[in-house]
């Protein structure tokens, strides 16, 4: 038996990430693109040699091979429209139309995490909160994902993605008596497939929701409205979009600005409805902490603040704070939770019921 481990994993629609703290306290993060392309079935023995020699990343299943990670994207870019880039995840949950999702995701999990060294090691994974716009359901996703980690003998702690942002970014709330309550506020993760939102109080989720309007939705809409290929929209979004300096003569930038605004409004309209149920408990102004790849364009937080200040919301806003590390914020939040859970587990004895520690 080795030393107990605590890890955080974010199986995002776009990227797969794993985080672990080393003995010196530094956080090591492994990232790869959560995508693959398929090679035709072959009896040829030397395919594996060729892939190895050329340092391509792959998964082998019997005599079938799949090029995965960044290499899959490279292949898809070489043959646009002719090679299908396939994804284990879609809209923030396991892609139901993809029959190889478990195979590819299972290998990513095994190669990044390995088998648990003992029965006290913990992996914390995140899932989307319940959908409020009639899109994907995450119950099935949660069970399948948990199964993939349990296969490697890990204790699995599952949290909602928005809570991971709260644990990582530490929003605060000032109580009536002037004391500060840490990890209290709204955590938002703007991903590729979904936007996740959690209201937390002292590190515990009070309510959570998710919508399918996120990065992919914006890319698709802008592409449709401007007759521009999605790949070009993404490129412009990543390289030129600056909300503090919108070029309204550029139709793609103009449309990106408009659809980002529409996405923010949609998210907060739904959140306001959910919030109404707990309104009486949250009179104090709330911090809003923001993370995720879709929040990366310059000036995003200012844009978000501008949009929501025009809305009639059932809560007051203290501040909108962008993560300093938006791409890694969610996986760092998962790591934080796993370290806490692992410490609790280490105090248990073999016959203890762990469901209270591992349950949500």
């Amino acid at each position, binding site marked *: 038996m080795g030393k107990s481990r605590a890890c955080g994993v974010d199986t995002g629609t776009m990227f797969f990430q794993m985080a672990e703290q080393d003995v010196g306290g530094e956080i090591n*993060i492994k990232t790869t693109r959560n995508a693959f392309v398929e090679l035709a079935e072959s009896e040829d023995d030397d395919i594996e040699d*060729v892939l190895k020699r*050329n340092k391509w990343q792959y998964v082998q299943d019997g005599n079938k091979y799949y090029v995965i990670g*960044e290499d899959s994207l490279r292949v898809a870019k070489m043959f646009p429209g002719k090679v299908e880039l396939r994804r284990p995840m879609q809209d923030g949950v396991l892609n139901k139309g993809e029959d190889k999702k478990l195979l590819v995701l299972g290998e990513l999990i095994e190669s*990044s995490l390995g088998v648990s060294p003992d029965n006290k090691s913990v992996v914390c994974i995140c899932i989307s909160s319940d959908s409020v716009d009639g899109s994907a359901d995450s119950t099935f996703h949660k*069970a399948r994902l948990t*199964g*993939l980690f349990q296969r490697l003998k890990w204790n699995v702690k599952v949290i909602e993605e928005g809570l991971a942002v709260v644990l990582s970014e530490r929003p605060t709330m000032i109580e009536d008596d002037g004391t500060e309550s840490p990890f209290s506020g709204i955590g938002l993760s703007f991903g590729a497939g979904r936007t996740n939102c959690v209201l937390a109080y002292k590190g*515990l989720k009070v309510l959570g929701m998710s919508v399918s309007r996120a990065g992919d939705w914006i890319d698709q809409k802008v592409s449709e409205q401007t007759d521009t290929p999605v790949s070009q929209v993404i490129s412009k979004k990543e390289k030129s979009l600056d909300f503090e300096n919108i070029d309204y003569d550029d139709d793609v930038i103009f449309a990106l600005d408009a659809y980002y605004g529409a996405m923010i409004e949609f998210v907060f309209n739904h959140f306001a409805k959910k919030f109404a149920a707990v309104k009486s408990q949250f009179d104090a102004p709330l911090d809003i902490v923001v993370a995720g790849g879709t929040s990366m364009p310059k000036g995003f937080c200012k844009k978000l603040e501008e949009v929501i200040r025009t809305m009639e919301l059932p809560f007051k806003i203290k501040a909108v704070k962008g993560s300093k590390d938006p791409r890694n914020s969610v996986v760092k939040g998962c790591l*934080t939770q796993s370290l806490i859970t692992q410490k609790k587990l280490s105090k248990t004895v073999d016959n203890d019921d762990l469901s209270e520690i591992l349950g949500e």
Partner: protein
Amino acid sequence: MYLIANATSSFIEIEDLNVSLQPKQAVDLHALGLKDRAEKSVHLKNAKKNGWIKVLRHDKPSKKITKITEKTIEKQSALDPEEILKGIRGIIKEEVKNINQNQQLPEDLVAVLTKIIQANQGNISVSDLTKDDLDFGDGVDLNKLAEIHTKVAEKVMKDTSSSVQYSEESIKDDSMKENLSELEGLL
């Protein structure tokens, strides 16, 4: 208006439209901005065929639009996959050359790339909806479901191996230590 209803007593998800319906729930697909996608949805078509989805009202799109769509499909189906493959074989060498400018062209890699193309020839389509694709809210305990999926994963991963490289970064984050001690007191 394209008003559909879940005719079953189970939760249904129309995968390629990203629409979920509770038992007996109805939804207007046009109001959801799915006018074009609803007409093309394979999953919706299958769900209707199997009687899981009932159409309550369907205002068809104008004939003009239908004509354009048909023309586009005709144009697409005129492409011969064999011709595409032949053309691609020719450009593979050029493309690989561009990627590995300082290396000699690996001939064997061309064979692998050709296999990728072959595998993807008939693949760029939406899969048909099967019973497996539907989410049924069947009330099974989540821990039991996870156990079932652990066994499924073991079966799926029986003969697999992989070679994966990750981009790795080490981050010094002083706030995490403080966050942890604070959270330990809270949680």
